[in-house]
């Protein structure tokens, strides 16, 4: 007997969580890593602009109001992206535009996650009447085409004083996009929670008296959080694009440069053959969208439990 036992090799396999495993696999995808770098670069630029503005640093790259040259200069060695109607540098405007567009996307994402995740969790966990109500709310919202909903919200919320808080410019945009985009993540979370809530680990937690809140926050949500991250990365792109469309409709930041505004200006500028503002903004949006899309896909593939076998 002992001989057989001795012959058996006891292999200790270090347990890996979904995250560790996923991240390991993600690291192997070189292309996705490159995209991550690009994404971080954009965020870094945004942060930089915020800091520079806050401390009032006179850094040339951020001073987009400075007249660097004559009106409507095409791109050349001196003016890398050309100038606009006031002779301001399009390059600097593009850099500043990152701040506007990324802030919109971040705020809208935050709002939709802050609404969608808790509601989804509550609906999925408690079921019953609460679930019916929440499902009714988001079914109603999702019956209305996304763009109509955003427009309706934006038109109505513009310049109103809601609960004593005055709504202006960008806040309207954040709210309009955020309030209409939480449905997707809510549905997702709800579905996952429903699947998980009858699993053994949850029953176990309940058996030793964990409160509902504890179960939701400490047990369930961490297990479904990877979906939130994936959803976030993919939805971020749609928010950046939504800013462009809202800007076209006259909603959004009017005083400061934004990529949407730059593309919109092209509507009248193309007549004079001025293509560089639109080009710069399009290129900026292109790279961040591409990076986020690829990275989001890679993330999803890496975190997909079905693929763990590979």
């Amino acid at each position: 007997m002992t001989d057989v036992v001795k012959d058996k090799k006891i292999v200790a396999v270090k347990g890996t969580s979904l995250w560790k495993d996923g991240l390991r696999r993600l690291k192997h995808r070189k292309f996705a890593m490159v995209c991550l770098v690009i994404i971080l670069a954009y965020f870094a630029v945004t942060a930089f602009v915020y800091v520079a503005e806050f401390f009032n640093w006179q850094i040339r790259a951020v001073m987009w109001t400075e007249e660097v040259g004559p009106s409507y200069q095409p791109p050349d060695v001196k003016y890398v992206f050309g100038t606009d109607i006031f002779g301001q540098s399009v390059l600097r405007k593009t850099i500043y535009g990152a701040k506007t567009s990324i802030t919109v996307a971040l705020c809208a994402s935050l709002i939709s996650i802050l609404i969608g995740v808790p509601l989804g969790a509550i609906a999925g966990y408690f079921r019953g009447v609460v679930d019916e109500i929440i499902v009714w709310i988001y079914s109603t919202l999702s019956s209305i085409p996304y763009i109509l909903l955003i427009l309706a919200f934006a038109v109505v919320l513009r310049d109103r004083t809601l609960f004593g808080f005055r709504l202006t410019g960008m806040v309207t945009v954040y709210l309009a996009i955020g309030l209409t985009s939480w449905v997707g993540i809510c549905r997702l979370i709800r579905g996952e929670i429903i699947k998980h809530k009858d699993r053994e680990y949850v029953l176990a937690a309940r058996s030793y008296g964990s409160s509902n809140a504890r179960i939701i926050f400490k047990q369930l949500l961490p297990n479904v959080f990877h979906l939130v991250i994936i959803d976030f990365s993919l939805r971020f792109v749609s928010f950046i694009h939504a800013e462009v469309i809202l800007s076209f409709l006259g909603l959004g930041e009017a005083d400061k440069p934004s990529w949407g505004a730059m593309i919109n200006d092209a509507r009248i500028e193309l007549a004079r053959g001025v293509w560089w503002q639109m080009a710069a903004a399009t290129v900026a949006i292109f790279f961040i969208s591409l990076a986020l899309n690829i990275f989001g896909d890679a993330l999803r593939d890496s975190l997909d439990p079905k693929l763990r076998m590979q």
Partner: protein
Amino acid sequence: MLKKVFLFITILSSCLFLIVGCGKDDGEQTSSDNVIHTALTGKITGLDPANMRDWSSGVVAGNIFETLYQYHYLKRPYEAIPLLAESMPIISDDGLTYTIKIKQGVLFHDDKCFPDGRGRELVAEDFIYALKRIANIKNISQNWSMFDNKILGLDEFREYTKTCKTRDEVDYSWQVEGLKAVDDYTLVIKFKRRWPQFIYILTDPSTTAIAKEADDMYGKDIIAHPVGTGPFKLKTWHRGSYIELVRNPKFRGELYPSEGEPGDEEAGYLDDAGKPMPFVDGITWSIIAEQQPAWLLFMNGQIDSKAIPKDNFGEAIDSSMELTDQMEALNIRLEKFSDPSTYFVGFNMEDQLLGNNKPLRRAISYAVDRKRFIDLFSNNRNIVADGFLPPLMASYNPEIKKKGYAEYSNEKAKQLIEEAEIINKGKIPLLKLGMPGTGTSYRQMGQFLKKCFNDVGLEVEMLYMDWPTYLEKKNSKSLQMFVSGWIATVPDARDFLEIFYSPYWKAGTKSFNYYNPQFDKLFEQVEVMPDSGERRELYRRMEMVVMDDCPAVFINHRVSYVLKHSWYKNYKPHVFQYGLAKYRRLDCAERANYKQFLKKVK
């Protein structure tokens, strides 16, 4: 089962295709039609004269409806001449009674609201009916303010309509003292006070005659079923897209004027003198909100005339402000004309900060670089506004430039800001400026103005809003500063002065909320004066009073550059008259050949 689903989708889509295929296309437009093709940027709100305040609607309606008087097409300065009236009105000595004889034999358009569908003869009562319609509160007429408290007995009629519960209850036979048809062709109007501009009011489309039959038959839908007496009738109206008018076969006829001003003969405007109008068979207006497509349609010969968009200016006009060779080669002609307008950044005089701080207001006026503004936003076409009365007005003061109200000086501005800070007992806080739009042009203007303010140390926040919101805020006095413009609709400077007269704006639209008792007294004096040298002097004095108080930064007066093709004859710009299509003539053969001509030139 899947097959059934497929089938369902196929059937559904075939239905959709059918709908699409069926809903199509009436009126192939060809360039050899004797029809004027033109474009509008704003949509037409409606063709009901009682409710017409926007320019686009007036432009179209002016060809369908006729008024008692019209402006002479060619003579300048602008003068009113009879149209449906027989002659100029007989005015009583006290100026309170107008007796107007109307022409006989004028017929309404054939329309199904008349028995047998045949238009009946126009009578004096129809004009009275029209005015009563405007007074009728149930019609919620936007034109009522023109007649408020002017005609004897009309306000009482309005009060009477308030007591009626529905539109149908209103009895139009209710007698109005100041509107009487002595016989079928004589109209007697009595006022409460003298109204020297009344003759011009009678050229406004809102005073055209309305046939009661049309009103009864169409009710609210009369906005799409205009029944007038003019040279054209409505053919089709695809709302928001295009509108077509067609020649009225029963038009009583009118002759092209035989006199004009010096220069008209050389320009070819008297070629058709004495000939019966109209010359064209119809007019089509396409509603094109974007400038670019409209411009390209013009270059392609599909539109007969176009104002030059600011971004295509360089293509059409060279640095000496004349046509480029390219345009000359295409036989395109240029018309330059000023219109009686002023563009400004207005101050809300009831604002705590601005209203009591004249140095601050004067400082802002010094800080705005008007010349650069004109260069950037109107291709250097417009002229600097030294006062607020445009040069077109007879009472324009040629000496006003010397007063220096439009001077640009950052030093003077900064000095005045120091004074302003003393009055304000502290630094000037963030100012707010409302813009009536959110599009690119408005943003560019906003950015420019912001720079001007920042250059003298003032902080300003630009508030971009859509037009309805802008109007609402301005009217509720919640805008501290606002960008706007004003245009005269009659050749009398009173149109400009009345916006500063406090009893008027208190009861109506708010803008500057300007109150100066001296000005009010002068206004009451000139209101009842007919045109004269003395009145013009008073107008100028009043302008000075206002300019000294600085209720706005007056920026520029507009000069329009319009291009027309060589085949579009008798096109003389007229800034007051609606309904000019009857004078125009087309050389259809030339237009039809344009496409080939284009290819050759290119």
